[in-house]
């Protein structure tokens, strides 16, 4: 039992509990600043993860707990992604605190508990561990999504997320019982060994399909996407952002681990399945986003389409495709946080997130409009934004595998997505505003906007370092 393998997770969990306790000692009106404490703590943990004692020297890199746990470069890559994402979401939540109606300390703590769960998912090497880690994330989100309990939309989103999430968890655990029943093991390595030695029986296939269905819910791919638009629209904006960047990435790391560790012998089969899901998600997400008028809802549909693009990289099924997925997730993190920060800054001023309310935003707040434009351009995959290089890698991966059908579907998706993303830009820049009063933006939010914008452009122009890390992590997954 080498607990030092878990030290990043334990530190994050401890930090969450610390914030929870600190809340008692802080004046009610100052409690929202606990978010900064949390963010600073997470960044400290992030810095710690770069210490040689964590990354090298062997004692934390490796597997433990009877093979249930693996700490490799990909795990570290994702843990860092979750730490950065959660820290930025915490800062965003501080700006959103007025809308939260109390209990902000718990809100911050829950975000960090969810982060702990996500960091656990990064190291999962066993189906039981997978379930535990995923439920840690999902449970936190049940509460977070329904946080605005006086608002009907938030409650509706909460109920929807709870019911469909519980259904997905049921799929997952049911599938795991099938797997255990047929193979006699829950470890990824054991399942892989079993599959190598024996042909997959029907109950085992059912079990694996059920597990994939449970994960499909997390990453919001077709046909498990039904919850996305309503939940994205109804949840508090920082929670939506966290769902988009954190929950999705957690789903993807699990999917990668299951597919490339446990199910590697079945690769020819699941490549077809993932490819089909990818194509459907790209088409559905993009086509359904076209008529949307609510910006948060639109980003919900766009999140389905991005799940599709990410799955394209998975369907390429080589180290290059996986590295593209890893790069994409980081680019997507900053891009989405930039977009949702803008939405959360507007939450106090605009009546709702309808596109009409964004009309003339460029005249009311040039910074918000510019940040939204950068984010949307990155989502659409326009240089010099990070999203462009991410899509470039994904397409390079599937063209490399000569999957021309998927290339064509992806190309259609990219062009269609330009239409609705640019529709928002159009509203912001050349429709006349209904009101002309300037929209105030507090300086921490300004800082957050600048950080995310610079990150989006920075990753888009200086892609080398991140692409290298992603490739190293991917090569470790696919030996």
């Amino acid at each position, binding site marked *: 039992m080498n607990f030092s393998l878990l030290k990043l997770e334990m530190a994050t969990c401890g930090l969450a509990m610390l914030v929870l306790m600190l809340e008692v000692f802080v004046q009610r009106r100052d409690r929202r600043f606990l978010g900064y404490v949390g963010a600073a703590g997470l960044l400290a943990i992030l810095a710690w993860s770069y210490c040689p004692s964590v990354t090298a020297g062997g004692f934390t890199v490796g597997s433990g707990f009877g093979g249930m746990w693996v700490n490799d470069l990909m795990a570290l890559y994702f843990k860092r992604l979750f730490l950065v994402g959660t820290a930025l979401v915490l800062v965003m939540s501080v700006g959103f605190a007025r809308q939260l109606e109390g209990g902000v300390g718990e809100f911050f703590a829950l975000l960090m508990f969810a982060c702990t769960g996500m960091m656990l998912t990064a190291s999962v090497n066993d189906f039981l561990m997978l379930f535990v880690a995923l439920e840690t994330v999902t449970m936190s989100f049940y509460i977070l999504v329904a946080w605005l309990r006086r608002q009907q939309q938030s409650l509706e989103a909460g109920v929807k997320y709870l019911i469909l999430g519980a259904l997905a968890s049921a799929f997952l655990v049911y599938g795991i019982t099938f797997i255990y029943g047929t193979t006699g093991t829950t470890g990824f390595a054991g399942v892989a060994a079993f599959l190598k030695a024996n042909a997959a029986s029907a109950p085992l296939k059912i079990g694996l399909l059920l597990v994939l269905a449970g994960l499909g819910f997390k990453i919001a791919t077709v046909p498990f996407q039904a919850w996305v638009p309503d939940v994205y629209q109804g949840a508090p904006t920082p929670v939506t952002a966290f769902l988009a960047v954190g929950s999705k990435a957690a789903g993807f790391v699990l999917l990668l681990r299951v597919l490339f560790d446990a199910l590697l012998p079945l690769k020819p089969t699941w490549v077809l399945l993932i490819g089909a899901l990818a194509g459907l998600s790209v088409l559905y997400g993009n086509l359904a986003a076209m008529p949307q008028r609510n910006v948060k809802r639109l980003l919900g549909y766009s999140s389905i389409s991005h799940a599709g693009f990410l799955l394209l990289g998975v369907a390429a099924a080589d180290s290059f495709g996986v590295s593209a997925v890893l790069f994409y997730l980081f680019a997507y993190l900053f891009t989405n946080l930039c977009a949702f920060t803008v939405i959360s800054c507007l939450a106090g001023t605009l009546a709702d997130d309808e596109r009409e309310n964004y009309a003339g935003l460029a005249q009311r707040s040039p910074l918000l409009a510019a940040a939204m434009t950068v984010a949307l351009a990155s989502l659409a995959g326009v240089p010099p934004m990070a999203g462009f290089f991410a899509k470039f890698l994904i397409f390079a991966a599937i063209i490399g595998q000569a999957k021309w059908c998927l290339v064509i579907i992806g*190309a259609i998706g990219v062009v269609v997505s330009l239409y609705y993303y*640019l529709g928002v830009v159009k509203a912001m*820049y*050349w429709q006349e505003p209904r009101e002309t009063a300037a929209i105030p933006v507090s300086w921490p939010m300004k800082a957050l906007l600048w950080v995310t914008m610079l990150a989006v452009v920075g990753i888009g122009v200086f892609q080398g370092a991140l692409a290298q890390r992603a490739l190293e992590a991917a090569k470790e997954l696919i030996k």
Partner: protein
Amino acid sequence: MDFLNILNGTILTPLVFAAGLCFMPARKWLAIRWLAILGAFITVVLSGLAFAWFNINDPGFQFVNRVTWVESLDMSWHVGADGISVVMVLLTGIVGFAATLVSWDITSRQKEFYVLLLIMIAGAMGMFASLDIFFIYFFHELALIPTFLMIGIWGSGKREYAAMKTTLYLSAGAFVALIGLIALYLALPAADRTFNLPTLLDYARQHPLAANVQRFIYPFLLFGLGTLVSLVPFHTWAPIGYACAPTATAMFHAGVLKKFGLYALIRIALPLLPVGAHDWNGVLLVLLLCNIVYGGLVAMRQKDFNYLLGYSSVAHMGFAFLGIASFTFIGLTGAVLVMFAHGIMAALAFGLSGYFFAQTGTREIKELGGLCRPLPFVGTLLVMTAFASVGLPGFANFPGELMVLFGAWQAPGWHAKIGAATVSWPVLLALWGGAVIGAVYMLRAIRNICFGPTPAKWQSLVDANIFARVPYVFLLVVLIWVGCYPKPLVEAIKPATGQIITAIEKAMPAVAPKR
């Protein structure tokens, strides 16, 4: 990165000025304008110096600077110029400077306008100066989004529709081309994969790609890049885009950005995929003749002067394509010269049209009339631009189109016997389309706009003042200078096009084109 490298200078100067303008207070718009003009001026001086210092006896790439960018993909910041690039860099500088100068008519949100314009100039510089396939594409896309915003914010008429249509067409075209470029990158064995163009050219010289691979990849590039150059039937974005765009955007896009497709075809597709290009040549020939003839016929029916100019640019692009399709040394050299000449001419035409529009508020040819009387200076310039467009000797278009036609005449397999004479039918059609149809629509429009009785409402128009004249005169001087003395440009272009033709000859001895 070598910041003293002149090509890096041409890319980074407008970018630095754009970044600097972001931090200026928006109400100081006059200072912003002058700073933008200064930035564009430094850029044009640098591009002029690059052309002046360019050694025409050296057939390789000059002013090279290479910095590794993404090692695992062998992607690098790699600038360098041969004769084709250096001519296009010069064109970008000239048109960019003129477009910045003419923007007096922008009266709202000047800061954003000049920032976007400078980004566009930097993007265009980057795509012509880069020697890395990824960055060539990257810079082109960088210039595209400003186009969308500029048409939408400062445009006129159906600007929202035009902005959306132009952007979707161009993005779709660029994306198809990107798929082709990635496929090209992946067609090499894993150890030799690179985005570095000189290495790729060397590689292709020694190990030509398999013919079926070439035939598969080339249409992606042809139709993707063709969309960007308004190759029929993907041309419908061009007229409405230019009609609705603000003057500077129309000038810069029609003059410079549109040439990207041709440039990439000449630079990437021809030397790397000669067999593919040869096998798809028949399709290209039919489409480009549609460009010349059909584009010209549609231009005859236009009532809006900018639409007419838009269709005329569709027709002119056909000539550049004809030079490429001819597969001959003189034709290809002529194509590059046409790209330069049309760039200057289109910029001048759209600039003058913008001046008329700012004065009269209309672009309807019927509404205008007799404008040479109240506006003698601008009117005369417009007449001369029309002469250039028609291809009159003395203007830059003439030598370019002449060389293209010579090249097309030499092209093997395009001849038919009519009576006793053997004639090249594409040349006949192109001549008819360019010289006859082109003359009809241009001269008719000029007659209606500049001559005839002057309606009372146009009597009080004021001619351009000395400041407003500068960009027009600048462009016209270049047009006449190149028209009368094209030698410096041709001498610079020749070694580069010669190398491309040599590469084709080596790859396909069977269909060796003539020198």
